[in-house]
């Protein structure tokens, strides 16, 4: 390679490397703000502030969903395997809301174990399969969705390896 080009290549790569490091550090420093939600572990450990508007996320604990028969009130627990707390919501839940499913809730943390949600969003995982395949898997003795999700770690979104009770 001729020396002029070589020098240009070095300068360009140096600029790129410098910028990549700068962006990396900025993202690392700001990741608390870039992360969409607090995990149950952060809520339970006290990292998430009380009485502040924020988002929390986690997996809905199997068997924890309690609906009020007369109103739209619903309470359920979310977990990431390292912490669990209750979410209370009044309204219509998204279609994909299920036990064992990941959710993100927008609202206020009232206490360390209770979150008042104004909005509940369903996360869906990256597995796609037809209903017949799901049935066949269940018949063959494989756990349903919750077990599969826990094994794969759901793309690292939930650090805990929660498996349904």
């Amino acid at each position, binding site marked *: 390679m001729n020396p002029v080009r070589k020098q*240009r290549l070095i300068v360009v790569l140096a600029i790129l490397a410098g910028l990549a490091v700068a962006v990396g550090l900025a993202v690392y420093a700001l990741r608390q703000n870039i992360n969409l939600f607090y995990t149950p572990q952060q809520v339970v450990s006290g990292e998430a502030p009380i009485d502040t508007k924020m988002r929390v996320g986690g997996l809905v604990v199997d068997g924890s969903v309690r609906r009020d028969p007369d109103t739209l009130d619903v309470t359920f627990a979310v977990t990431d395997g390292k912490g669990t707390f209750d979410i209370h919501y009044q309204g219509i839940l*998204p279609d*994909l809301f299920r036990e064992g499913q990941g959710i*993100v809730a927008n609202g206020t943390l009232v206490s360390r174990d209770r979150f008042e949600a104004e909005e509940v969003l369903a996360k869906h995982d*990256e*597995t*796609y399969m*037809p209903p*017949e395949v799901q049935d066949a898997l269940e018949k063959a003795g494989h756990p349903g969705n919750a077990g599969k999700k826990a094994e794969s770690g759901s793309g690292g979104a939930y650090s805990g390896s929660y498996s349904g009770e």
Partner: protein
Amino acid sequence: MWKTIKRWYHQLGSPVYFYRFSSAVLPWLLPISVVLLGVGLAWGLAWAPVERYQGDSYRIIYIHVPASSGALMGYIAMGVAGLVALVWRMKMAEVMLKALAPFGAVLAAVSLVTGALWGKPTWGTYWQWDARMTSMLILLFLYLGIIALQSAIRDPRQAARAASLLAMVGVINVVIVKYSVEWLQTLHQGSTLKVVGESSIDAAMKWPLLISMLGLWLLYAANVLMRARTEVLNRERRAGWVRKLVSRPRGI
């Protein structure tokens, strides 16, 4: 192997050779890409099985994923073209950089719109400022920035130099788009298709997805070749071979 690559690089770096090469490739590339895309989309949208939880609404994956991956790959290609244009001052790399931008910008926009339409029935929201969506929006702005930069500077070589730098720096954002779902807490789920290891999508749903992805990528490539040909003719309009080409009734 290395020698062949080097020869290709030098040959395709020559506008005349590129023009002839693309004349030979395009009549095949364009129809193949349209057929693949048509087959993949029809198969995915009409015949692929429904999803166990999402029902039919998951089918937008057959547009969303090809468009997103095309936008990301197009940007990486622009970054590489930018590096070659900056360091080796190769004119064809400048042409490629310009040719890659418009279709890529369209794909990024398609990805954002289909993502929003998919988000409403599944997540329950059109838009959240999560890292994946925000970085994808930035990717669209980078594409638009490169198009704007190139039309703002009159001298094509000066314009290409400015755009090359933006293209290369923007590649950092592609890395963020790709890994945002792994490094950060996002509403968007992780990647389904994996280069290494098993993809977490049923085979009956995966094949139409792969076919429409390939079809869209080839369509993008065909579009880039067509744009690059026009740009080459425009830049080389005073060169002998272009004069000869336009004076003859049939192509080169």
